[in-house]
């Protein structure tokens, strides 16, 4: 294993998550990040940011969606070591860090009861967030398209659409 690591071209790693920098040693220890770790794993197991969920772990469900430089991506399909120098935003990074008031988009999900078990919700909110950042007043079809990579086993889709449309109408994308 040491041999494997010696071949790697780097030994430390700095991630920027929700505006904060975190440095890691590259390795297999309990506080280290291994070259084979996915971003989803690192967020949950090293940074304790368990809002990001892992379900399929294969790029097919959207539960692990986070923003990288503002774009929605699936964190289970990214190697952590390839996420340096990128702005990573997780569900924990929404809302106001000073007042602790949640993001209007999150509030809209609550107001519309846009979830049942809630497992898919962080991923859906991050995909919706990416859409609203780019397109503050989307049509219903544009919302559907933007959320087409997010699956919900509880069939909350209709409420989700309402929640995102309502948030957009309120200009709730600050």
């Amino acid at each position, binding site marked *: *294993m040491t041999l*494997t*690591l*010696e*071949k*790697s*071209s*780097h030994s430390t790693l700095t991630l920027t998550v929700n505006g904060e920098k975190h440095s890691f040693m590259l390795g*297999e220890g309990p506080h280290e990040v*291994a*070259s*084979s*770790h*996915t971003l989803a794993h690192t967020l949950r197991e090293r940074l304790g940011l368990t809002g990001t969920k892992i379900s399929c*772990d*294969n*790029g*097919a469900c*959207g539960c692990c*969606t986070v923003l*990288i430089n503002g*774009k*929605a*991506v*699936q964190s*289970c*399909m*990214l*190697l952590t*070591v*390839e996420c340096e120098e990128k702005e990573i935003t997780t569900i924990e990074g929404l809302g106001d860090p000073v007042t602790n008031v949640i993001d209007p988009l999150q509030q809209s999900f609550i107001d519309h009861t846009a979830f049942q078990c809630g497992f898919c919700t962080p991923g859906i909110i991050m*995909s919706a967030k990416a859409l609203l950042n780019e397109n503050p007043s989307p049509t219903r079809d544009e919302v559907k*398209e*933007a959320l*087409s*990579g*997010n699956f919900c086993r509880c069939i909350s889709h209709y409420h989700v659409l309402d929640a995102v449309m309502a948030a957009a109408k309120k200009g709730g994308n600050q």
Partner: protein
Amino acid sequence: MKLFAHVNAYSVDETIKLLAKYEGTAKLNAGGTDLLGVLKNRILPNYPEVIINIKSIPGLNTIEEDEEGINIGTLTTLADIIASPVIEKNYSLLKEAAGTVASPQIRNIATIGGNLCQDTRCWYYRYPDEVGGMIKCFRKGGKTCPAVSGENQYHAIMGAKKCFAVCPSDTAIALIALGATLTIAGAEGTRTLPVEEFYTPLGSVLNSGEMIAAIYIPKPSSVAGQRFLKFTLRKPIDFAIVSVASIITHDQGVCFDARIVLGAVAPTPVRALKAEEFLKGKELSEEIAAEAAGLAMAEAKPLSKNAYKLEIAKTLVKRLVMGLT
């Protein structure tokens, strides 16, 4: 995922040197949306020792246009291809194909080069090692193909001999219809190759010391109609059950040029040469379209559970020719 060494490459030359240094034990990682699945499930007989990140190479994610065509860097994401005004205007076929791939999140990181080089999706081939051991089928150097007498509903209906897995790439058929060529870098320098000649029944002609650097598409005639159709059970996420791409030029209903390419019906993308030839000079009608569809699938020999794909393929070809959706 099992551990590997991880190296960032900063140029094509460096990548080629690294590939030579690690002699077949290294794998390139572009977007990783295919590779990570392959690694997580340990489906390959030899797990790579080194992963070479090529996203760190600058300048390979651009779309450059000149009078004769466009050059797309291998690292260009599918999302960037879809958003490109140049591609929308003159190469809409590629935009349509890229737009049907996976989901918005995947398209944000998946690259065009990775799309062309992705491994097959045959579910025996992809069977995870941790669930009872990976399946060493013919494609992995084994002796048999469990799909022949097993669950073969998504497998090849033509052109297969020993491995019946299909080429899953949606962009490949669009690029072949557009007559695109690849720039491939290797230890002996670069070579160019039509995308049409890239695929082989068990993969591609790319050797383990090479990488795709760019894709060149000659500008199609502005009167040529470009179309892409893909049949799936669900709209997002699903791979094609059958996909078709075409460029058909006609003058007042009389066809004078046609290129038709089918995906997910055979181990490689298939050009429907007989149908293309047949269409030239014909006045396009429903009967002519049906006849062309029949010719496109003339050599089909479905397996036990996938004869339905034949009907889907014929219908899609017919719709292409008729300009229907």
